[in-house]
């Protein structure tokens, strides 16, 4: 189970952000080559990945790159190098284009000595046509491990409709993330953006309190998936909100034990601390324990990586 509770998003050509990325305690970084890189700088940005990857991953975070839909081929040539965990493919609209991206990555993995199939594809659904075709897109490549909407509040979709997406407002156009989640769940994939997530990059992107509230709501709803952070302020609260606290872990262990006890006695359900415990509740508790273990492992890896990086650089903070 991959843990990526908070991925810090930054333009690949912003040295200030790149240099500080490893110190932020992130689970991952998303290096943007799309909207955060102005058009005249796109070509130069393609020269940066091999130099940037070792810098941003020093703290143990994984690396994803958001490429440009329009320049997908040139961007893949520039980004598929050892160290890359996955690419975000914006404005995905059909299975066919994902298959093209998959084939190109396969060629590059072979040529560059990378483990075949190691680079994931996360299609971003950000246009009406992408929403309509979401089921076929989600099934279009074995590299797709998680699926959701666009990760934000739908600014791109709003642009196509010619309307501003207003977080929390009852807009028929604002619910497409929920449809993408249904697709992900129907195909038993990880949901890459939770329905409870409210403010994304389109709203307040700085507030740590809002980030914590979103993350906690996601965790309580059973969405063990993080979101991108446009500002470092959001990283720690997002990780805290998505990590199951000890009391929840303890309760999950008790629920499993209780279910195993009644199951052995031939019963299907019982009451435990005012709630019903049955097979489904036990399954939910097992998922929670699995998630908690994966988070603990991720935190341990980050701690080790951070310690090594600090020692190598002779810094402390």
């Amino acid at each position, binding site marked *: 189970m991959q843990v990526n509770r908070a991925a810090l998003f930054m333009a690949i050509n912003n040295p200030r952000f790149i240099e500080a990325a490893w110190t932020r305690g992130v689970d991952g970084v998303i290096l943007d080559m799309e*909207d955060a890189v102005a058009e005249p*700088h796109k070509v130069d940005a393609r020269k940066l990945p091999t130099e940037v990857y070792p810098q941003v991953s020093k703290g143990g975070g994984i690396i994803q790159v958001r490429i440009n839909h329009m320049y997908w081929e040139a961007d893949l040539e520039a980004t598929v190098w050892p160290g890359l965990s996955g690419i975000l493919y914006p404005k995905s609209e059909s299975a066919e284009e994902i298959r093209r991206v998959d084939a190109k990555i396969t060629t590059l993995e072979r040529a560059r000595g990378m483990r075949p199939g190691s680079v994931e594809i996360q299609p971003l659904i950000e246009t009406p046509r992408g929403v309509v075709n979401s089921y076929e897109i989600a099934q279009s490549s074995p590299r797709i491990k998680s699926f959701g909407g666009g990760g934000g509040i739908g600014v791109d979709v709003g642009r196509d*409709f*010619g309307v501003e997406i207003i977080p929390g*407002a009852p807009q*028929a156009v604002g*619910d497409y993330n929920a449809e993408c989640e249904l697709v992900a769940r129907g195909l038993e994939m990880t949901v890459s953006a939770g329905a409870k997530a409210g403010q994304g990059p389109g709203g307040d992107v700085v507030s740590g309190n809002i980030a914590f509230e979103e993350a906690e709501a996601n965790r309580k709803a059973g969405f063990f998936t993080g979101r991108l952070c446009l500002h470092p302020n959001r990283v720690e609260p997002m990780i805290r909100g998505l990590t199951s606290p000890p009391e929840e872990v303890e309760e999950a262990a008790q629920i499993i034990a209780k279910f195993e006890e009644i199951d052995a006695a031939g019963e299907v359900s019982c009451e435990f601390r005012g709630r019903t415990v049955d097979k489904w509740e036990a399954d939910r508790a097992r998922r929670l324990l699995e998630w908690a273990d994966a988070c603990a492992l991720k935190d341990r890896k980050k701690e080790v990586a951070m310690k090594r990086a600090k020692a190598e650089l002779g810094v402390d903070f």
Partner: protein
Amino acid sequence: MIKEFVRRSLLMVPPSDRDAVEQAWTHNADANVFDLHSVPYEQKNGIRAQLRDAIPFLCKGASEAFVNVSQAHLHADIEAAVWPGLAGILLSYPESSEDVSKVDQTIGEMELKHGVDVGTIEVVVMIGSMKGVWNIPEICTASPRVTTIGLDDEPILEELGVLPNPDIDPLGHFVRGRMVYEAAGIDETLHGHHGLYRLGIDFPLCSFQRSSASPEEVELAAHDARNSAFNGAICPSPEWVEPCNRGFTPTDAQIEHHHKVQETYAAGVAIGRGAMPFGDGRFVERPYDELAKKVITLREQCEERDAEKKSARS
């Protein structure tokens, strides 16, 4: 070739009321719809005979003329409607691509027969059943004449046997959401809009409180509908026209906001940045700039449409 359009208000005109037909243009609707579908069967022939003469009244003052036809009387209705001056046909409650294909074919025959430029008559599909909702993709793509899709809530609510209330609008998310996504996902981009033009308005005005709605309520509903990706609405009475024209036009405040977005983004690009802070912890990036351009363009198109009508009426 179908020309570009802005149609914020489509006024339903009762064909049996001669004054209403002759005065329809004075209400300033972007389009007037001769509602042949609502005429009782025994009166249809008489009304059809008047249709050709009614078209010049419907499109007077630069309004556009449409006729709402019945699927049960398709050939006779379309034969009576397709004459020079007509912009399009409203097709009530199609449920499949075959329903649309039949209309397309009949219109084509009548364009030739009545001296109308071939391929210029549009089709507006009005969805009025759950089967129609389910088949929106095939309905939308059945003919290049289909430029617009609309929703008639009442027959769908009747079919479902439910009434909406302020807390639950059963058509809100699934039906309207499905409609706008499918229609906007159509490959072709028409009239500066993404996909098909979309007609609709939200609860409560979509169903049972039409006659009692104040102009302010209608304008607010139209404004909300625009935020839900609708471009215009069917107006059941002349009182709806001006509030719909206003509600579906981007406001001064919105235009001011989007100009500020454009300026902020341009300032970022000038210093090599793709994302710029915009206050309240927000950032603007290229999609925001593109949305701003779209909204400002729509406002300009609406103003041009208003000027065109004003000039034709002076």
